[in-house]
Each structure stands twice: as C-alpha cells, then as structure tokens.
C-alpha cells in the first residue's frame, strides 16, 4: 500500500504517555548547548523543541501503519512549526496524537503534513506541532 489523500484524517496516538522528568530536560538542554537557567531545577520548563521528541512517539505509530508504506530512511524533514499554549515542564504526563492533514504527490515524492497535539493526560492543551515530511519512493 502507499499513502494517498484518502488517508488524510488518520490519527495515531502514542502507545504510552510521556512522563517529563527534570533530568531529561537537563540532558536535552545540554545536548542542544543551551544553558538557559529556565531549563534547570525543580521548576524546569523544557526547551521549545523538546516538544518534537515527545510528539515523535506518535509519529512512530504513524510510520508503523503498514498501509501508508513509509520508510524512515526515505524521509526528509522539510518543515516544522510549533504553537505553544504553555511550555512543557518537569512533572508533565503528556499524551501525543498525530493526525495526517495533507498528502500531495509529485512523481515518486510524497509530501505529507501531519499535526501532533500534545496535551496532559487529563486533556489540558500544551502545544501543537505541525510537521512536513518528504518521502521519496524512487530508488537512488
């Protein structure tokens, strides 16, 4: 099977919620070389792009949908956007759901947009991530 526009609207929830810990926030901030004190300590918030990592648990489920026929090693990340209701913070327990919003085809290349909503497991909105991927079915 291959992805097509009829698959717009399919939704994929991360298998498990993501429990945000302050040491993971610190590790992530260190890895991006960001020493901002807001990302350290008991009241740490997460750097803005931490949201992508949390959302990637839902992306994994999308990629596992065999009907889409997507392969990770054929995907290029084209664009990324975040809208924040509030920052992610240490102690959050986050549910992520990715929904396919657009599928466009140009020859062997499929441009796929999906939107990932991040909420607490109690339903409080945190952020929405909009991602654009190019998937190339042509053999190199």
């Amino acid at each position, binding site marked *: 099977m291959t992805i097509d526009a009829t698959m717009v609207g399919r939704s994929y929830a991360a298998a498990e919620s993501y429990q945000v810990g302050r040491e993971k926030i610190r590790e992530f901030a260190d890895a991006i*070389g960001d020493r901002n004190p807001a*990302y350290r300590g008991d009241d740490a918030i997460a750097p*803005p792009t931490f949201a992508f990592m949390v959302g*990637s648990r839902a992306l994994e489920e999308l990629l596992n949908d065999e009907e889409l026929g997507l392969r990770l090693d054929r995907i290029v990340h084209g*664009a*990324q956007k975040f809208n924040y209701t509030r*920052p992610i913070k240490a102690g959050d327990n986050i549910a992520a759901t990715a929904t396919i919003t657009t599928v466009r085809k140009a020859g062997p290349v499929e441009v796929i947009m999906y939107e990932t909503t991040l909420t607490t497991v109690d339903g409080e909105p945190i952020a929405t991530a909009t991602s654009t991927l190019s998937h190339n079915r042509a053999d190199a």
Partner: protein
Amino acid sequence: MIEVGTELPALTVTLRREDLVRYAGASGDFNPIHWNDRMAAALGLPGVIAHGMLTMASAVRVVTDWIDDPADLVEYGVRFTKPVVVPDDDKGAGVTFSARVDKVADGLAEIDITAVAGEEKVLGRARAVVRVR
C-alpha cells in the same frame, strides 16, 4: 521597548560530530545520516549532516536568550532548506543565527531568524512569535 527593526544579538554555534552524537542520544533520533559517513554517502548526501531539529533548537536560542522568560514563546516555525554538513574533524561546522523584530502588535512580537552555515542559508521562513510585556 521592543520595536520593529530591533536586531537581536547574533549567536554562532559550532556543531561537531560529538554534538550530533549527543543530540542523537538525548533526542532518540539515531538516524545514521547524522553520525555515519558510509550511510550518509549511500543516500547521496555530501557528508554527515546535523539533525534539522538540532539546528532548529540552536536557532531559537537567539530569541530565548533575548527574552526574559522562554515561556513567552508562543509560536516557532522553520523550513529546512539546506543540510548543515558536519565534517569529521575538530573544527566542525559553524552556524550563525541572527534575528530581527518584524512586527509588533496585540502584545506579540514576530521575529525573523536567519541561519547561515558557510555562505548558505540553512533555514527558510524561520519565525518566532513571543509575548511582549
């Protein structure tokens, strides 16, 4: 007072292979194009490239270093237009980020970010929106 035309302090980040490996570990993105020359070449890339999300994370520091509280960021988006090639040496790749306030309205400031590696812009339409007080 934040005004249209305000230039934010620029930031230059050096990305070395070690930084890509550390980001792979912290983010869970172990795609080999970010650490393995053989795999990068097999996919037709000019070399090992930085994670787009690492470049995106670095770029927004120009904004979050400038505002008092990073929690005031309400929107942030980029297009990944060119890969940042990270050589296997001690020098790594330098990426310079600059930013300018493009619009101020309704308690929000829109900031355009430019990211340059070598001579090339590596991000397109990089834009952050922050609450202003």
